[in-house]
């Protein structure tokens, strides 16, 4: 178990560093295992600095920066051991438009390069427009959910109506 964890750590760290700079359009980040004799007991530390900023405590990063850093970590793990399905429930909620764009570009690349199927729940118009297909969930009868296949136009209307 120990060698496997260390090998996985090296790979995840490699992907994390790369994905962070792609999602932030620059900057740098890396992971490290806290010092203990037994890697199976170690904790995972994250060091990150957005472009032009100094390295600092992760809790000082903004809401949007923390979400992007977390996505870089999740996708790094994912690239090492890809799951057949990935579901992202409103992960773009704290992001501004420029970061929504970089997030969508990354998901697109992951979807094209592998076999993983992505379900992306969102309220963002930009994200909806980048999807291969859209499903709308409505409650035309209050309290009862119905699933309908929609095109972008209908999805926009669904956003407005509620």
């Amino acid at each position: 178990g120990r060698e496997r964890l260390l090998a996985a750590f090296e790979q995840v760290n490699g992907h994390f560093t790369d994905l962070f700079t792609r999602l932030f359009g620059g900057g740098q980040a890396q992971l490290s295992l806290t010092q203990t004799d037994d890697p199976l007991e170690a904790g995972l530390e994250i060091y990150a600095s957005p472009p032009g900023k100094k390295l600092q405590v992760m809790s000082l990063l903004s809401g949007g920066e923390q979400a992007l850093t977390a996505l870089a970590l999740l996708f790094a793990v994912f690239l090492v051991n890809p799951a057949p399905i990935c579901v992202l429930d409103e992960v773009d909620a704290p992001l501004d438009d420029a970061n929504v764009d970089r997030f969508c570009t990354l998901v697109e690349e992951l979807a094209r390069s592998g076999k993983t199927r992505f379900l992306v729940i969102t309220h963002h118009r930009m994200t909806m427009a980048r999807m291969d297909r859209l499903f709308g969930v409505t409650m035309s009868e209050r309290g009862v959910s119905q699933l309908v296949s929609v095109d972008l136009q209908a999805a926009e209307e669904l956003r407005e109506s509620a």
Partner: protein
Amino acid sequence: MQFNRLRLKGFKSFVDPTELVVERGMTGIVGPNGCGKSNLVEALRWVMGETSAKRMRGGEMDDVIFAGSQRRPAHNIAEVAVHLDNTDRTAPAQFNDLDELDIVRRIERDKGSTYRVNGRETRARDVQLLFADQATGAGSTALVSQGRIGTIINAKPSDRRTILEEAA
């Protein structure tokens, strides 16, 4: 192994039979607040063997059964099925002789859950292992629940390590 379809009946707000086709690439799910989007994610997690009612946002597991609306009475049974394509023959040995796998979880109020794979009753444990072997399952980091993305960074380093274990 690929996910093809998710079917729900009586699960949370999806009281009527509902089918979500899962295709290649990116499928967007949209709709107003409270319409049932996150309930779909939970249906997927539940059929793969989720054991915690809290992760289903309920007090007890029976809370996943349709509790009624102003016009409809509550139900006593909920059922979620996931249809998998196993033509690449990667399922565990006991399930691997078939092209398609149909995994159904059914819960009856006050009586608990049962699982079936292609019609045959199966232990929860075997269903959970089936998905774990495929790098997925109820606890998969690739299923990111609403609001969870903000908590990963502020988690304790030892909690973050469990994320790494998934890659190992």
